[in-house]
């Protein structure tokens, strides 16, 4: 019998706050940076209470200057600190794109390991919360295509905490995407204290035999609902939460696809160039002959994420996922 683990009931954003507090306590070199993360506790309250607990030097309100503070964080990371920078919304990471692309992700390689950038960039992402434009982007693929940075995207509170701790302890830069639609949408039991979840490992949320549904982040609830719905039609769906988008969990993907032979990928990013196509590539490379049908991708469209009056049309829905499952089944 396993020893009982003490837990707390937390939302995803509370779990993130918990992870940040634990790491600030544990490692004096961890330092949070970003816009409005101090007194205000972040626009989503992810850093609530941390500045008053750890002081202004460890929880630093920066100027409104993403290239500036990400660039500064790189200099700090090289010089002994572990900056955890918050980008207020993923859509506001673009001004810092050059710093991430040409420095954060390359410095280890440029100097053959002499200088390294152990930093985390946290960013809420995704549509569905009626936010203004650019607040809704889901552009993880821009970063999975960027060598030298890992991309993590949890969908549940417990995963969020364990993965964020792992990201902070990772010796390399990690982009940590937080599905803002899941920030407060549900709670679960989250272990107290420090624990980490290995980056690069997905998780089988539902065991199934007929169809594999692969998804991550804010699309997980949609995938789960579709799987639930298919149960009524006696279709057994396996649901996989990738959790890390670079590097993908090749073993988990191929093992499942080889079992079911039918795959539906669900993501809210644009179809062309989406991470779904990397999953497709893994299937092509590892499981070609196991495929009983072409893989279906249910994704955001090749359109900018629209203004929120239109966002429900853009976002993948349970209905679209169900249709795709039916399609791979009837092939």
């Amino acid at each position: 019998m396993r020893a009982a683990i003490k837990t707390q009931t937390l939302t995803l954003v509370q779990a993130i706050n918990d992870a940040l507090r634990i790491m600030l306590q544990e490692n004096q070199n961890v330092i949070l940076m970003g816009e409005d993360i101090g007194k205000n506790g972040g626009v989503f309250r992810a850093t609530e209470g941390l500045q008053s607990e750890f002081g202004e030097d460890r929880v630093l309100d920066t100027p409104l200057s993403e290239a500036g503070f990400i660039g500064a964080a790189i200099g700090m990371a090289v010089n002994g600190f572990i900056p955890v920078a918050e980008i207020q919304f993923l859509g506001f990471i673009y001004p810092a794109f050059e710093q991430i692309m040409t420095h954060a992700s390359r410095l280890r390689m440029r100097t053959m390991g002499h200088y390294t950038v152990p930093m985390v960039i946290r960013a809420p992402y995704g549509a569905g919360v009626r936010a203004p434009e650019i607040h809704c982007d889901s552009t993880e693929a821009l970063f999975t295509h960027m060598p030298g940075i890992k991309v993590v995207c949890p969908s549940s509170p417990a995963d969020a905490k364990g993965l964020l701790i792992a990201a902070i302890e990772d010796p390399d830069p990690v982009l940590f995407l937080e599905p803002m639609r899941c920030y407060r949408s549900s709670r679960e039991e989250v272990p107290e204290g420090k624990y980490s979840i290995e980056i690069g490992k997905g998780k089988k949320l539902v065991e199934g035999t007929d169809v594999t549904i692969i998804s991550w982040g804010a699309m997980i609830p949609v995938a789960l609902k579709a799987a639930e719905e298919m149960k009524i039609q006696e279709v057994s769906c396996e649901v996989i939460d990738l959790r890390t988008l670079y590097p993908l969990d090749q073993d988990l993907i191929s093992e499942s696809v080889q079992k079911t032979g039918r795959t539906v990928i669900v993501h809210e990013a644009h179809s062309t160039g989406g991470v779904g196509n990397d999953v497709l590539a893994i299937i092509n490379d590892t499981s070609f002959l196991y495929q009983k049908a072409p893989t279906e991708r249910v994704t955001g469209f090749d359109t900018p994420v629209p203004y929120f009056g239109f966002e429900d049309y853009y976002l993948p829905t349970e209905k679209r996922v169900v249709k795709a499952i039916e399609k791979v089944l009837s092939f």
Partner: protein
Amino acid sequence: MEKQFPILQIIDPNGNIIDENYENEITEHLIKTFYSHMVRMRVFDRKAVSLQRQGRIGTYAPFEGQEAAQAGSALALNPDDWMFPTYRDHGAAMAFGHSLKSILLFWNGRNEGCIPPKGKNIFPPGIPIATQIPHAAGAAFAEKLKGTRNASIAYFGDGATSEGDFHEGLNFASVVKAPVVFFNENNQYAISVPFHKQMNSKTIAQKSLAYDIPGVRVDGNDVFAVYFQTMKALEAARNGEGPSLIEAVTWRYGAHTTADDPSKYRDQAKSHQRREITDPIIRLERFMKNYGFFDQVWIDMVQKEAADEIDQAIKEMEQFPAAKPGDIFDFVFAKLVWPIKQQKEEYLEMIGGDKK
């Protein structure tokens, strides 16, 4: 630097003219125009906040307190000029001629709200901070190349000055002598971040020195000071003298947006106490009283007209046709490309056509 860039005022908080140079320029027409625009803006703003509370529009960015800065600057424009507002400058946009219905549609998540009235050059509100600044420089440069006397105005906040785009936009404009006015509303907060954590300088106006362009600091709650300084900057721009930077020192009484809770980072009671001294509408009323322009009947009428106009706009917004799913596909490119065409067809088929 505060000495080099004093806060220019034409009327003081008590409503007295303190810069006599402008005594003759302050006509009744001007006063009434300013007053009615500012009241219209405030009625709109409060109404919008309450619409948001009722769930009838989305997150909204109020500008109460910044009416003089926005009215004074926008009313200085010529009809053919270009305006590049942020999410907080719908006051300026409405003063320049944007339709209230459109502004409400924008805040209700509808792209239709970004379309300005025919002939009006108003950009959609800039959401990614400071990005509109180079656009304003470019549009102004285009006017220069065309040989017109049109100018453009870019609005942005104190926080925006920290972004690279602020610097690049001002530098570009200064080099090509683009006819553009960079109009800063220094409301002293970028969400929760106060001015002194945003920058080490005591003024924003002094940043003009980096580009050798004129910079001026005005009392942003003095509509006359804002108006005449903007006019001057626009005039210089039209005359080929290039860009200028105006810092309008002001304050927002409310929250950053309806999603923000300002009591987390500042004392809202104190913020409201400032009204006594700084409220731009109260100040203008004092002036009107001091100089005999105060007319309660007229004021009531202005209030009522504003309220009616806004109610009408709300009605129009709420009766506006539902968002058409097909629209998200049709405006990405001039002509549908096949991936989008295919996505559109599949989607419309699934939902049974474009009628939601």
